[in-house]
């Protein structure tokens, strides 16, 4: 197991270095940040001074080798926008996204498993049809629309919840609901499909023949055998949430890494773009390893 994790880590380090190299050059293709950081009517002299101060007057290959050299001493550069360490800015924003993603994904997965399993148990029933409709709506409705309507109804209309921001338990409700709707909708579809296949399997028929209780057959046998594809999809959705809960973070003023990444790209804050990519890439690597390990727990035939 440890050997497997070591091999995955080794390959991931190579991938991350490749990714950072790509990001370094792609960000610099977007042009000179002085046009955004200095007023439009700045003199050429001021622009040159800005470039000099930030090392942007050097040829791009010199900047790249300087970047690699700094990486070796864990110097990830300074944020042009915030006048402080770029990695500090990224690490400060990351927990907010992680917490939101973790809660939303856990709730979405648990609810989807229960709803999907119950829908699969009685295909074509009223519950199945309602679950299908709700999950399809959840998976396909744009989250910015749900967020705005949620604010209009629950904050402005009913005054039950705050419009946005952080600080209290109530501030979590709308961002979590909006963020979990899409994974919930997709996972209900996956759980239902795999469960219907599992329930038609010979071992389930055998369990029925032996007189095993229906609830135990559904949740104890069929569900366990249906979880592998669910975990694969849930893993992909989870990495998506870590990478970009951008809309939710923007609308609800949630100080997370998704919005930071987009803002930094728009602002040509190169060091922060690189740091946010690094942090999210490592997080996605950890989530993927965790999913692989979970496979082994759920399916004894899988060994690393």
């Amino acid at each position: 197991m440890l050997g497997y994790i070591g091999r995955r880590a080794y390959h991931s380090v190579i991938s991350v270095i490749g990714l950072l190299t790509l990001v370094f050059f792609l960000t610099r293709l977007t042009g000179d940040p002085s046009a955004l950081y200095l007023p439009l009517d700045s003199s050429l002299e001021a622009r040159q001074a800005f470039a000099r101060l930030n090392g942007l007057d050097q040829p791009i290959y010199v900047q790249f080798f300087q970047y690699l050299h700094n990486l070796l001493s864990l110097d990830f550069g300074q944020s042009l926008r915030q006048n402080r360490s770029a990695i500090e800015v990224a690490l400060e924003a990351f927990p907010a996204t992680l917490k939101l993603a973790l809660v939303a994904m856990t709730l979405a997965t648990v609810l989807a498993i229960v709803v999907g399993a119950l829908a699969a148990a009685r295909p074509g029933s009223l519950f199945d049809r309602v679950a299908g409709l709700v999950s399809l709506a959840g998976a396909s409705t744009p989250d910015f629309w749900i967020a705005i309507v949620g604010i209009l109804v629950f904050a402005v209309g009913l005054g039950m919840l705050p419009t946005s921001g952080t600080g209290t338990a109530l501030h979590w409700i709308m961002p979590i609901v909006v963020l979990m709707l899409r994974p919930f909708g997709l996972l209900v579809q996956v759980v239902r499909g795999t469960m219907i296949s599992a329930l038609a399997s010979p071992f389930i028929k055998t369990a029925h023949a032996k007189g095993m209780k229906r609830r135990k057959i559904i949740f104890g046998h069929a569900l366990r055998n249906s979880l592998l594809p669910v975990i694969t999809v849930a893993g992909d959705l989870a990495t998506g949430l870590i990478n970009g809960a951008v809309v939710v973070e923007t609308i609800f003023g949630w100080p997370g890494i998704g919005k930071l990444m987009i803002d930094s790209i728009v602002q040509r804050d190169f060091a922060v773009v690189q740091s946010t990519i690094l942090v999210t890439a490592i997080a996605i690597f950890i989530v993927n390893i965790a999913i692989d390990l979970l496979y082994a727990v759920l399916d004894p035939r899988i060994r690393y």
Partner: protein
Amino acid sequence: MGNKSVRVIAGAMVVAGWAGWAGAQSASEIKIVLPEQPANLEPCGTIITNVGQILSRNVVEPLTIVDPKSGQPTPGLATEWKQTDPNTWQLKLREGVKFQDGAAFNAEAVKFSIERMTGGKLTCSNIAKFGDAKLTVTPIADLTVEIKSDKPQPILPTLLSVVMIVSPNTPADKAVNDPVGTGPFKLSSFTPQTVVLEAFDGYWGEKPAIAKASYVWRPESSIRAAMVETGEADLTPSIAIQDATNPETDFAYLNSETTAIRIDAGFAPLDDVRIRKALNLAIDWDGLAQLFGEDVQRASQMVVTGINGHDDKLAPWAFDAEKARALIAEAKAAGVPVDTEIELIGRNGIYPNGTEAMEAMMAMWQDVGLNVKLTMLDVNDWLRYLQKPFPESRGPNLLQMMHDNNKGDAAFTVPIFYTSGGSYSTFEDAGLDKEVADAMAATGEDRTAKFKAIFAKVHDDLAVDIPMFHMIGYTRVGSRLEWKPDITTNSEIPLANIALKD
């Protein structure tokens, strides 16, 4: 854990959350919600909207303050000033002023702040207003300072309104996020979620009614408006016209920005004045104004009323499609290639309905016979067309742009737009260059008259550009506050001017 326990804990969390959310503010505390997070809190960047709206005249104060009505400099930390020769100004400084860290405010502190700004060791946005001027600051007495420039600066007191005075204990070689000034409020905290200012007990002026102000940021206009409506916030600037639906709380104000189309006069057919005049005449201005709201004002020049040099009597172009067609026909008969494709370059998100405005104008120009095609660009690409050096591959083009001048004088507008060397200028006219140089060196009424003459010439005779509208901003002010926005609101929201209703 039983079901009952779960219910009790969940209920307690909701109640605690509700209490924390609803009852966070006391009577003299206010919350302001801004469209954008300030990138940093460096006092040398107060001309950037989201920095200036927090710091300017709250935490840090300038030497002079431009009066929003007259455009003239009035006392700030400097109380009097006089020009001793064309290159030298002498300033008397205010007595009894202390910095928030206890340091003394005096001529040495002013010298420190100006040299920090001009030293080139940190990125300083405000210095852009001084162009390439070199300043030498000499303390004459404890509260008297002399400022020399390498060339005449007739409006130095106006320029000094962007010089924010910081404590001499501020690092001179790097930007800061913990500014210390002489203002009525001191910085309490700055996190990724909020900036908090608290009243400074040692302030030299009148004690403000506000004891504490928190700033948060939400990019969505509808959410900012909703925050004030629900009482979560007390004030938000720059809401979109479609969110400004409540006349009790939503105030329209001339926000000092002017939108226009720059004509690239370096290419045919735009190098012909008849075509440039036709471009102005072909627009149904009343129809176009529908996209900008009923409060918007037609523009005839690139600065608004109140800016020195603005000419109230200069009439905007009227809509006359027939005359436009006649001018185009006349140019065609004279050999001007009027069928050449002209690229109209717009900027995504430049202002609400900006794309729709470009689409409408393109259709109106096509209607009078010009071959105009629209290209919309994001800001980074658009900037390449706005300022020199322009892309070499460009052809005849019209550029959508917006210009903000709330600094009291046309000097911040005319040279960059209308001189041969101006960074936005596509027009080269030695005669106009000389007129601009004369205006820049003039003072008093002579200066005003010269700038007015330049605006009249570029509008009526040369038709260098297509001034569209002086833009309107909307601010939502909660029912607890007594405050109205003005032309300076884009760059400052002085908390000391906000009163609390009983």
